[in-house]
């Protein structure tokens, strides 16, 4: 399984003055579920794109430091050499549909065809991906006829079929209705259970707090903090960095209720429920 190692990563988009990423150093272990939070413009998307080499190889611009996926240094390889190891899902489901395929089944095949995966292997992988994302019943539907949530799960299936060890999701639920976004969260949780490393940018703070092993807080391209949700949301300076703790954390903090035996406040509904119920 793939390990991610980032050393003093700095990056500036072409024709801009400010650094989009400013000295990020961190390690991500195989199988971790990492939430990425921060205000708009804090560098979350840029960070995601640096993990698959879109930054700097697609956008160009000034780049410093190193990103390693195992022993591969990302900037030295093309995106297509990396994308069977690192998959990436974007915000807008419509713009991830190729537009050249007639059915969901064929759409998922797109990436596999590009890598010359033999037909039988391809079919097996597509069936597994359909199953995992719970969209097997739409396999013969036209890609554009799906709802947003279904389309986003198809996008994830298309990536998962390529067997990546790491999947990076950049605000995959922000354009979906509550049902669609719940479907995507459940699907991502399943990927994590399978041992795939998940890195997910998300504004829905209560959700990301519940799913993440660790949370990365970015501001102005800098890594402000990288720690467990409990540590992150116990911080006093969240508002300065344009984020807010989950509702449950705020309630317990105001009531002075810490998780017994720790310095932390609850971050999930369950934790808060337990704590408040015994009061």
């Amino acid at each position, binding site marked *: 399984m793939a390990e991610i190692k980032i050393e003093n990563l700095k990056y500036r988009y072409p024709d801009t003055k400010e650094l989009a990423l400013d000295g990020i150093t961190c390690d991500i272990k195989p199988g971790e579920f990492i939430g990425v939070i921060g205000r*708009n413009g804090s560098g979350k998307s840029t960070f995601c794109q640096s993990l698959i080499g879109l930054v700097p190889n697609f956008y160009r611009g000034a780049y410093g430091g190193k990103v390693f996926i195992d022993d591969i240094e990302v900037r030295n390889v093309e995106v297509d050499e990396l994308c069977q190891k690192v998959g990436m899902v974007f915000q807008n489901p419509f713009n991830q549909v190729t537009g050249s395929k007639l059915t969901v089944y064929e759409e998922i095949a797109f990436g596999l065809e590009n890598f010359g995966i033999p037909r039988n292997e391809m079919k097996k992988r597509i069936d597994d991906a359909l199953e995992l994302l719970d969209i097997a019943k739409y396999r013969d539907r036209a890609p554009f006829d799906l*709802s947003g949530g279904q389309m986003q799960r198809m996008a994830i299936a298309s990536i998962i079929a390529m067997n990546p060890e790491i999947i990076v999701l950049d605000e995959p639920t*922000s354009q979906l*209705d509550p*049902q669609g976004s719940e479907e995507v969260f459940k699907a991502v949780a399943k990927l994590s259970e399978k041992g795939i490393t998940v890195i997910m940018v998300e504004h829905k703070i209560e959700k990301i707090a519940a799913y993440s092993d660790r949370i990365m807080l970015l501001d102005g391209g800098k890594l402000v903090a990288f720690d467990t949700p409990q540590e992150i949301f116990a911080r006093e300076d969240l508002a300065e960095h*344009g984020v807010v703790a989950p*509702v449950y954390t705020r*309630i317990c903090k105001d009531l002075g209720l810490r998780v017994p035996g720790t310095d932390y406040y609850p971050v999930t509904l369950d934790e808060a429920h337990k704590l408040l*119920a015994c009061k």
Partner: protein
Amino acid sequence: MNTIEIKNLHFSYNAGEEILKGLNLTIDERSTAIIGQNGAGKTTFVKLLKGLLRPTEGQILFNGQDISKQTVATLAKDIGLIFQNPNDQIFKNTVLDEVMFGPMQIGMSKDKAKEVALKALDMVGLKGTEKINPYDLGLSERKMVSIAAIVAMDTKVVIFDEPTIAQDYMGKKRIQAIMKELQRQHKIVISILHDMDFVAETFDRAIVFAKGDALLDGDVKSVFKEKDILEKAYLEQPYTMQLCYELGYKEAFLNPEDFVAYKKANQ
């Protein structure tokens, strides 16, 4: 007081496939959130309010006048609609020109348009960006430009279509402040939303759409109390309410502040 009366409103794009099935509502100066799954008819409904679509049956009366008697362009003086994606509307080279476009279209003089545009930009927190090209701003600021562009038209009704999409915490706070200010000016504020906590913290009234009809309608608290009905419409309660429900409280709170205040008072 401004009102919109909706009487037996039906709409379908294709015969036999009704998107709205006979809505009856009166919308007044209480701020109103429209929630529900995609495909429930929310966007169709606001397009009808805005006159972009015509009812197949029934009527929409704004302050007693049937809006179907007016063209979309003339209706623009009374009813403003902020589209989901700011890129669908922005076309001028500077922020100021973009915000002045609407006011000038509805007949304001250039000086007057500039005055209202500057006021609107101030309100959305974009003071000082007047000369910038909107496409040099980030998406969330561009959204604010598109809001200012409608606010500047000083319409009696302001409708938002999923304004919180891609907004961070600060952006949501700002949109909340804008909505409250519009309401203070006695405008009718209507918004389609997917963020239940935002609805709970910002709105007076919530209408749950499901399959082309209003499944629930009432003040926000009473609507969000109906956990089972919400589930049928694939909606969740706001987080604070979920906690109240888990704890088996009879009393339900819409936001963390009310919850904390109650606990502190009862300790």
